[in-house]
């Protein structure tokens, strides 16, 4: 196992708001990392920064041992499935696959054939000539997963990849993750669905208010906890204990 990703003292502010505060961690090849945190904790920002969508930050990001600021070659080995499935959605899936192929240097015929096969696994290959904006939320997300993985990347950044996807496809997706791990791929998985994270991940990174507060293997993290669920750890760390009181308050308002 070799190190494929390292963040050193990474900080990032949007205006006066500090989103990431001195983030440090490293990831080895073949790991599945569950990256969790509350809304607005800085998860998506971390991923965008590693991908170079944001390059105005303090500290350093290393991918495959190289500092990434201003670089682009490393991205050929990275796959990204964004949080909201943004795409050039006035194109048809067919046209979009050709376009993605161009960006990663894959010939059109191959990109389309490969994409169609992968779409077929999720049961959406017959929509390949449809314009993407006519797709349902789940179909969009499936296509987003396909286009994010089209170029056989070594590290995958998945930002809430299962939104709107049906239960059967989720099952398939989880198996795919396991297979890819066996092939030595690294997966950086960010999500709010803690059950899935718990089942998939080898290691947990928990970010709270811009700081990494938990970094450990699944087994380690679990053993420190009495009732053995990621959910309760999450609540503990984020200092959230009054869900019952809040629910009571909502119910009261509801009944009035």
């Amino acid at each position, binding site marked *: 196992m070799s190190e494929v990703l390292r963040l050193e003292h990474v900080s990032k502010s949007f205006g006066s708001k500090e989103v990431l505060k001195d983030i440090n961690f490293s990831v080895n090849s073949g790991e599945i990392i569950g990256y969790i945190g509350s809304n607005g904790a800085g998860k998506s920002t971390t991923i*965008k920064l590693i991908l170079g969508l944001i*390059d105005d930050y303090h500290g350093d990001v290393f991918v495959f041992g190289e500092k990434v600021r201003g670089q682009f070659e490393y*991205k050929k080995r990275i796959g990204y499935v964004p949080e909201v499935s*943004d795409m050039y959605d006035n194109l048809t899936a067919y*046209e979009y696959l050709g376009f993605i192929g161009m960006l990663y240097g894959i010939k*059109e015929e191959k990109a389309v054939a490969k994409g169609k096969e992968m779409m077929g696994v999720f049961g959406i290959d017959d929509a390949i000539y*449809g314009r993407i904006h*006519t797709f349902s939320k789940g179909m969009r997300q499936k296509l987003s997963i396909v286009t994010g993985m089209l170029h056989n990347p070594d590290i995958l950044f998945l930002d809430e990849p299962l939104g709107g996807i049906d239960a059967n496809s989720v099952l398939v997706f989880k198996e795919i993750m396991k297979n890819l791990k066996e092939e030595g791929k690294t997966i950086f998985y960010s999500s709010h669905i803690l059950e899935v994270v718990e089942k998939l991940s080898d290691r947990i990174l928990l970010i709270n208010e811009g700081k990494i507060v938990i970094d450990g293997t699944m087994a380690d993290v679990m053993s420190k906890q009495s009732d053995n669920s990621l959910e309760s750890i999450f609540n503990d760390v984020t200092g959230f204990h009054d869900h019952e009181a809040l629910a009571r308050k909502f119910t009261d308002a509801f009944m009035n």
Partner: protein
Amino acid sequence: MNEFLSLKILDSFKKIFKLFGINYEVLRIILKTKLTLDLRRAPAINTNNRRKDEEQTSILKGYLLHLIFGVFLAFFIYFMKDEMIRMMYFSGAFFFMTTMYLISDFSFVLLDTKDKNILLTKPLDSRTVSLSKVLHILIYMFRLNAFIAGPSLAAMVMSNGPLVIPIFLFEILMIDLIIFLVTAFIYLLVLRFFDGELLRNIINVIQILLTIVVTVGYQIAVRMIDFTSLQDVKYIFNTTHYFNPILWFGAPFEIVFHGGESYLYVFTALIIIVPAASFAYYLALSKKMERLLLKLEGEGRERPAKHRIEKLVGFIINRNEVSKQAFHFSNAMFRSDRSLKLKIYPALSTGILLPVLMIFNMRMRGQQLEATGYEYLYLYFNLIMFPTIYYLVNYSSAWKGSYIFASSGFNNMENVYRGLMRSMACRFFIPLIILNGVIYTIIFRFRFTMDIITLLMAGIAIMPFIGKIYLSVPFSMPIDESNQKDTFGKFLLSLGIVGVLAVLHFFSHSVTMGTGIYLAVLLAVILTGWKFIPEKINSLPIWQKR
């Protein structure tokens, strides 16, 4: 939410609604919400320089163009003395403009299926909900009426006295009804036989046409109409006129002011019967319409797109894989991004019309259409349109997809620009110049053929340079913001380049073999210029903020 005049007027009919068992309070709240939403939605045309905090004044501002049109129309009919001819022109123009505006700005109301999801899940009477939809459209149409027909009514009163007011208002109401029904029937027909995508395309084409008509139409109209001759035109009846609605509307005025022939009474009857009958028919069909509207929610399946010509052209003119793919990508974007098309085509149409207008201008000044020999210089207006188009291709309604340019680590923008510009040349610039060339050839025969070919070469030659000035990552910025950037400096620079070429072209005529030499120089510029296409850094500043 501020108070709407239209709602205050509606309040006076409160009792009537109650009489029919309509829950007026609910109806009013729904309408108020819908009208407020309209304010926050930019209309298809006249979106220039609109800022978010201008909501309060935007009703009036939004209708400024309508008012200009209305005043123009009023002037026009004021000069006519024959009632039939006058109303023929008026109702023709009124039909056309109101229909266009209704389709381009208000189709979303007619075709809305979302408000059903919101409203019908609440405990509301479905009659109240459908009535709110009809009233919403009527309020919009009455506002349009006030601005488009108001000035004409004033003109009519000035020439015929206040007696025209009730007749005129009644006729407007009937025309509105016909327009509404015709539009609904067209939609019904399209939806019956095709899918929602085609309907959206049709609406888009109409929006583009309307924008063109509004931006350049007046200029032509003002120049081409001879006001003095209009006074003498007399109407002559023909039985086929029974089938032409725009001829009906002069009849009541003719009867009242000049006494009438029998056919005038038939016309008057038609004005009442046709809208009434079709309205009854519409009511019978409205259930079907609702069902067909559901098609809009379904997935549009495009027939496996062929685009054989594009594919073939792409294969011939692109030697490398990336530029070929970029060529296809750009073509697909230009084909399918409706908001982008709505900006590009009106700009192009200005480019087509300006050289032609220049020639007409000369004619208006009483000169013969004898060529002076310098008319080819007008064609350089075509090249002046290039910067606008270049500026626009940085924008898209699907701009959020652009993250992929950064996240993929793609670093061959040079070839993307090459493919993009080839696509722009094939789709926009070459057809633009050829079209103008054809018009020129029709007018001047083959006198300027050499100059047109030279201009085509000049156009292709400047493309990489304008590209260097304007292009960033293509389709990467929100199209709604495409009005806001100040690019005057860039435009001046491009104008300078075009100017230099025009001057060179001009002087090439005073040297023997000059045009030939100029052509050769352009050819050399094309061959070298297209080799050194700027390689820009792949940065997407807009993503830094999100």
